[in-house]
């Protein structure tokens, strides 16, 4: 007896997964499988690529073509996969540290090229797998094992970073807003060009415990109360936006040439 979506898209022998109780990563992985199901994609025409970290273990559970690569380099490997097989739907799963620190350059250049890859960042605000070191998205002032007196860095806004670097689709959701997140992932996969879906996840074990955020359910309730859609925020007075974070679709640009299409046109021209 299993969820039919799980049976269809997961490697059942590898489940249950190793993520901690209350880790949000499983919520995003299920939404991804549901989005792929809604799009009716052929499993053999999907390739999921990851780097290193808690989130990057996801492809081990997903029953598609999958690649588990080196730290921060998922987008570099994915670029190779997409250029060699432009017909594949290439999906990168990355963490906040993997995507924006170790792989920060790969992220901005994949976005700049507008290559047809969907990147889903599981942003849990910490390096969970290695023991809770602060990451580029750890909020200013928060604690990590490498910031015992409070993080003095200012955090990256990954969705806006990708948009500024040239991504033609950029959106953010949270694990509380799982239905909306699923729709965003669906839109991102269908989009022709580089698309970024940043999902705010929860790490109750390291980030949560270190910063006294309470249980996993408390952390998810915080996401429910703290995030407002960018379309709603436009109509709200400033005082109602104080202390809130923005989610929603930040950028959707059509008509920009996708990288493998541009590459193919060079090949066709030189054949003549």
């Amino acid at each position, binding site marked *: 007896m299993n*969820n039919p979506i*799980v049976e269809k898209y997961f490697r059942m022998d590898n489940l249950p997964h190793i993520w901690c109780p209350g880790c949000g990563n499983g919520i995003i992985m299920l939404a991804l499988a549901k989005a792929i199901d809604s799009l009716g994609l052929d499993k053999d025409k999907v390739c999921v690529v990851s780097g290193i970290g808690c989130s990057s273990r996801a492809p081990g559970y997903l029953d598609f073509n999958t690649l588990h690569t080196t730290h921060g380099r998922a987008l570099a490997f994915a670029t190779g996969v997409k250029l060699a097989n432009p017909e594949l739907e290439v999906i990168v799963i990355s963490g906040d540290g993997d995507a924006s620190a170790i792989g920060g350059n790969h992220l901005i250049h994949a976005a700049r090229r507008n290559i047809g890859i969907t990147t889903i960042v599981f942003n849990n605000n910490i390096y969970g797998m290695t023991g809770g070191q602060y990451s580029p998205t750890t909020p200013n002032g928060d604690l990590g094992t490498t910031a015992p007196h409070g993080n003095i860095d200012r955090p990256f806004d990954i969705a806006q970073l990708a948009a500024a670097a040239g991504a033609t689709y950029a959106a953010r959701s949270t694990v509380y807003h799982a239905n909306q997140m699923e729709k965003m992932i669906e839109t991102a996969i269908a989009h022709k060009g580089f698309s970024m879906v940043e999902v705010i996840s929860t790490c109750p074990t390291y980030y949560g415990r270190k910063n006294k955020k309470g249980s996993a*359910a408390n952390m998810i309730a915080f996401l429910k109360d703290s995030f407002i859609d960018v379309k709603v925020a436009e109509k709200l007075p400033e005082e109602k936006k104080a202390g809130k974070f923005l989610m929603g679709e930040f950028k959707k640009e059509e008509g920009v040439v996708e990288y493998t299409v541009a590459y193919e046109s060079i090949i066709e021209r030189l054949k003549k």
Partner: protein
Amino acid sequence: MGARDNQEIKIKKEWCKGCGICVTFCPKQVLGYDDEGKVAMLDSENCIKCGQCEMRCPDFAIFLGGKE
């Protein structure tokens, strides 16, 4: 007759890690815990089969399935 009348909440106990997310966000508060701290259906009469438990379960341990 609703569209989900032939469905019911299924629980795969062996995959439940007892995180409490489904229990907390159930809009009708029909879920609770068993002796082992895992999720249990306490009041199936009042379950509206909205599927919020399924969509936020990180372990795929609770879901809407067809009645047997």
